[in-house]
């Protein structure tokens, strides 16, 4: 039998039908050497406490479902290795989001914010499919590629101190996504996204905490996207730069 080590997990539970507020429960889980925290949560659900609710799917860091706080830090639990932690491991749902149940948070505001920046290709005249692809050089692709890597895990939202005080702040992922489309050479929709961005709760809510980029598991660097977008936005606001993107 493979070797296991008993690890103590303190997991925040919240059952809205019976609990007034969230409460920690402790579980002892026999963990294998190469387990991630997600494996332990699944072991708890399968064999110890089936009433634990948590989200997960791909377990390889690309679907973005399993973001939680482990020892206070936002991380994908499928990428948080048990061997990297000492002592009791504390698992909580993402900060800055209302808690629906146990480790599951309400992400509707996140989805709404993503949609509000119009994250799709906007063009005056669409090319016919029969004419083939838009030509885009590898350099043009590099411009926005990093920002297109966002898996919508919302760890950046959990980390952002601005969101703690102002839940209506647009947030790093939404702004980075808007910036990804603004930088895409095929897009002409800069002007359509302007109003969503150029708002006290849009771009300008960001006050350089930079924690979003620190926690992003895909190295999207949303903080950089926001600051670049701020520069563009400011120049557009004073009409030094036109709002329509170059194509």
């Amino acid at each position, binding site marked *: 039998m493979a070797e296991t080590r008993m690890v103590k997990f303190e997991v925040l539970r919240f059952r*809205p039908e019976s609990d007034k507020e969230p409460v920690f429960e402790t579980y002892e889980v026999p963990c294998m050497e190469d387990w991630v925290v997600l494996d332990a949560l699944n072991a708890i659900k*399968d064999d110890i406490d089936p009433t634990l609710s948590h989200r997960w*799917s791909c377990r390889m860091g690309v679907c973005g479902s399993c973001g939680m706080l482990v020892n206070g830090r936002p991380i994908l639990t499928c990428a948080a290795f048990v061997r990297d932690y000492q002592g009791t491991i504390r698992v909580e749902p993402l900060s800055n989001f209302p808690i*629906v149940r*146990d480790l599951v948070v309400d992400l509707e505001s996140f989805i709404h914010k993503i949609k509000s920046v119009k994250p*799709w290709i906007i063009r005056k005249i669409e090319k016919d*499919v029969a004419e083939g692809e838009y030509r885009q050089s590898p350099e*043009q692709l590099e411009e926005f590629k990093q920002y297109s890597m966002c898996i919508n895990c919302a760890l950046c939202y959990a980390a952002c101190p601005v969101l703690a005080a102002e839940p209506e702040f647009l947030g790093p992922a939404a702004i980075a996504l808007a910036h990804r489309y603004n930088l895409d050479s*095929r897009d002409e929709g800069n002007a359509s996204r302007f109003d969503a961005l150029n708002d006290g709760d849009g771009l300008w809510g960001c006050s350089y905490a930079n924690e979003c980029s620190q926690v992003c598991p895909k190295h999207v660097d949303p903080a950089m996207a926001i600051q670049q977008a701020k520069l563009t936005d400011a120049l557009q606001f004073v009409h030094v730069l036109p709002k329509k993107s170059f194509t």
Partner: protein
Amino acid sequence: MEISRHDIVLVGGGGAGLRAAIAAVEADPKLTVACVSKLYPMRSHTVSAEGGAAGVAREDDNLDLHAYDTLKGSDFLADQDAVEVFVEAASRELVQLEHWGCPWSREKDGRVAVRAFGGMTTKRTWYATDKTGFHMLHALFQTSLKHDRIVRYDEYFATRILVENGRAVGVAAFDMRTGKMHAVLGRSVILCTGGAGRIFPFTTNAAVKTGDGMALAYRAGVGLKDMEFVQYHPTGLPGTGILITEASRGEGGYLKNNKGERFLIEYDYGVGGKAELGPRDMVSRAEMREFQAGRGFKGPYGDYVHLELMHLGEEKIDKKIPFVRELARNYVGIDPVFEPIPVRPVVHYMMGGVDTNLHGATELPGLFAAGECACVSINGANRLGSNSLTECLVFGARAGNSAAAFAKGSSSGDEKSALEQARAEAARLDRLRGKHGGEKIAQIRRELNLATESGCGVFREEDSMRAALDTVTQLKGRYADIGLSDRSLIFNTEVVQALELGNMLDVAETVALSALHRRESRGAHTRTDFPTRNDGEFWKHSLVKFAADGPHLSYKPVTKTRWELEERKY
């Protein structure tokens, strides 16, 4: 009980589902589509596809060649008319996705780049570095956001297709958030719920791949076709089963045994000059035979072989397959620039699924299906890598258009019977939550996994398949006595797991039954007791249908248009 009325009800929000939704709303400016998904759409398993999507792109390529490669890859079990339709629409769909913002990797002149892939005679696999599925899904999801007529029901779990007067008129789905059952009604229903890899213990598949849509269609009386054909992907990480894309071989990676030999060249495994780029079923079998011959490396999760990428160099790896490097470092602690990655065959894709024609229509009027959960069939007995992402787009669009046309041409039902069925589902769900019983979900799931692994693995034979089928039937009996602890309504994931387990048991039964009765080896279905292909008796699709006294197996003919059957040698 909540009732929602739309024109089209779509179950599943992955690559095929979102493509179908967009196709449906673009087909008619008045139609609304309810997109019912147990996940937020961008979490769908399409997101983990890595290698690429095939479509004729270069001047030296043509549709007939792509069709022939696909057909040969399928061991000639694919329906040739469907394959013709597929290859014809492939590039167009991929260009459409590019117009919707998908960041395909490019050549220097700005055109879309293509790479080599297993079983393809020339380069025709479009790719977005090595996260193609991710970029495709996000492009589709973000594009779908601009259509207000696509109304999403996120984290709703569909438990039954509502059938009225012999027509599919919607689904009963419960809101995982509130626990309440909804009747989502429409004039046509599309299933795009993906495959069922989770019936096996080692799989590249996500937790959610539990064959829900297949089970829904099956219980509604629609046949599941070619279920015995389960694709093992040759390069999955041992233990976790995490996918290491075929693109790593497409870019020049080698597979080596414990003697340092490129065993696909050294020994005769039928792949000929293609070596590592042979079709997946052949490469997986080769690896298993290497293990049997004692030439595999031994590890805590079983035998494995080495995938060597060192000779590609750091620059090429970082440029073409950076995600492979990241996965190897994170999950096995190996940097492929310096060391080989341990890999072994893991379950990856179900060639079989809901029986549809090439318009995505099933035999139940108003019910359509597309993507991995459907079987048209273009993949036959074995799928070529990079065909399935394109399949999602081509048949997702076709199913969306067909469902839109059907909805336009139908009237709404009178709803009475549909709502009764939905209420019955609500009662069933209430009984299931916190149900008393002696069996545990996790235990039955584990035993199911053991049964499928031993009976329906890479190599199969009569006795172990029969045993597996018997075990599954027994497990279904034990499932009736399942005990649940969570009585709550709000975000109860235990009851979701119980429902998924029920779906997996139904699907596994069809897999074991079809496999047992196909007394030949074809494509991914390899039998040690019937090791050759038998076109005379078995050039036909298997079809399993639900019946009260147990599943009924029958067969359907394969459609042939232009290509004659051949021996499958590379």
